[in-house]
């Protein structure tokens, strides 16, 4: 990889990441997704300071008013500002998305890397376990966990993370397995490099691409799962709120006050949209097979 002397002879070489960035920059939808995502994260981080009203602040004279100059997205039946509620709800939704995905990422990458690198019987046993877990009705297990241990945010992170790591483990394992047999890894071996250097220098950077792509695609599915549970009343518990819970409330009063359903719905859908387009774009950008056309 560090072959600068060769590169000067030919055109200037680009690394996988530079290459990917160049390709991603051409994908307008993915860039829009990235931009929207950064914007949403910033808003969520700054919500305590920039939210137009207090979280529990009620304006009892303004119960369920449609959007206006004072309340851009209207107010709910208790006279609470919808924009503020959506911003706070977004914090929870995004947090669930990121933390649960991080849990899935940690378990999946370690599990898959060990299985793939050790190989042999250990790998067979480990992957058999993954197969078995795949066949379980996980949605039901999460609901069961929430029922048995009560609805709590921390549990939700781990329950969802514990479900979503399976695919990650499979992807990483497959990647590591195929890398181990590649010539450049063999070459590194024959040069006398230590195991650790090989893992750090060759295995990890080369598994990163698929892992990043899958991570971007896991976040929306995790957020969807949280929203689904909250919608059923089995997820986030008031006074905390999330977009799923807001949609749940919105449905109850949608005949009279449709904006209470529509705005949280738009927030959730747009975020899922952004993440999916970014994930698709990253997949195209990081796939070496599509490079150098």
């Amino acid at each position, binding site marked *: 990889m560090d072959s600068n002397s060769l590169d000067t002879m030919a055109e200037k070489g680009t690394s996988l990441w530079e290459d990917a960035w160049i390709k991603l920059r051409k994908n307008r939808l993915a860039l829009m997704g990235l931009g929207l995502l950064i914007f949403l994260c910033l808003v969520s981080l700054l919500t305590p300071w920039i939210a137009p009203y207090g979280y529990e602040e009620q304006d009892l004279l303004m119960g369920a008013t449609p959007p206006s100059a004072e309340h851009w997205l209207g107010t709910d039946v208790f006279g609470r500002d919808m924009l503020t509620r959506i911003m706070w709800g977004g914090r929870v939704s995004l947090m669930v998305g990121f933390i649960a995905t991080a849990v899935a990422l940690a378990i999946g990458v370690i599990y898959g890397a060990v299985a793939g690198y050790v190989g042999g019987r250990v790998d067979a046993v480990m992957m058999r376990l993954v197969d078995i877990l795949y066949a*379980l*009705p996980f949605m*039901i297990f999460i609901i069961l966990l929430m029922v048995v241990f009560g609805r709590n945010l921390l549990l939700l992170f781990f329950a969802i993370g514990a479900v979503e790591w399976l695919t990650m483990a499979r992807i990483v394992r497959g990647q590591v397995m195929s890398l181990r047999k590649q010539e450049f890894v063999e070459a590194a071996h024959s040069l006398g490099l230590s195991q650790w250097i090989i893992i750090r220098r060759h295995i990890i950077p080369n598994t990163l691409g698929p892992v990043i792509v899958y991570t971007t695609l896991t976040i929306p599915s995790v957020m969807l799962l949280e929203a*689904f549970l909250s919608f059923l009343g089995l997820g986030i518990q008031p006074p905390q709120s999330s977009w799923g819970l807001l949609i749940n409330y919105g449905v109850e009063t*949608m005949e009279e006050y449709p904006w209470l359903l529509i705005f949280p719905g738009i927030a959730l859908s747009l975020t899922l949209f952004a993440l999916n387009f970014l994930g698709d774009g990253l997949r195209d950008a990081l796939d070496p097979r599509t490079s150098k056309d």
Partner: protein
Amino acid sequence: MLRFALGRLLQAIPVLLVVITMTFLLVHSAPGGPFSADKAVPAEVLEALEAQYNLDQPLWQQYISYLGDVVRGDMGPSFKYPGRSVNELILSGLGTTAELGLYAMMVAVFIGVIAGVTASMRPNTMQDYVPMTAAMIGICMPSFLLGPLLVLVFGIHLEWLPVSGWNQIPGDKILPAITLGTGYAAYIARLSRGGMLEVLSQDYIRTARAKGLSEFLIIGKHALRGGLIPVVAFLGPAFAGLLGGSFVVETIYQIPGLGRFYVQAAFNRDYTMILGTTVFFATLIIVFNLLSDMLAVWLNPKLRQQVRGV
């Protein structure tokens, strides 16, 4: 093929055992018994109730006797609907959910395959972008948002379609089927586009073109069979997902199906019902996965040889 199926069935047994054990332990580790949520019950009544449901025995004994019951196909009585067994409740909801799932799948496959194949015929043109963007919207629009919006538009504003119930007013099955099917239609569209693109670049399609076959014959007779393999592989897990989707759709449209029963059981802490439905769902999912694997083997000659070789 038979050996393949039998082998997979044998593999399913430990999976089911894991499901039953995990669910059983989870449910029994729940704080508070199933009757503690109700109004204060006299101690002797509570004891009598627990004796009636064998809750006074040690856990392992309850587990063994539950396993025995499940093997015989008896899921026990419902805690919250006195006098009704879990079997009865499951059976009464199953038909409804199966019907809903079937219609939803028909919607999904019909729309999804047409959209995907249309897109694959002229990749990277408007004919590709329009259906694929629609598919992306379908994926990002969860059923618990799409359902209420459809109700709002077609039920309440336009008053075209009934918005709740099942099998009571003509047309009350349309909105639930569309709500449940749309997300899957979107996935199927993406999968069939990908599969078709792969197949359309194969040599045998070029041969078919060279023979001067019409585009309709090339797609319909030669390409579809190979191109739809990813879709078939998706159908098994999709049916499993449909069960999850039925939770939402049956709740929105107040359909007396299995999904609604499960959500209610979860709310009411009806433990035998939760246990029973979980075991039942797991069995269904395993069976569907097996069926879709078998179908994939049957469709793909390469896999067929592999299976025969084993």
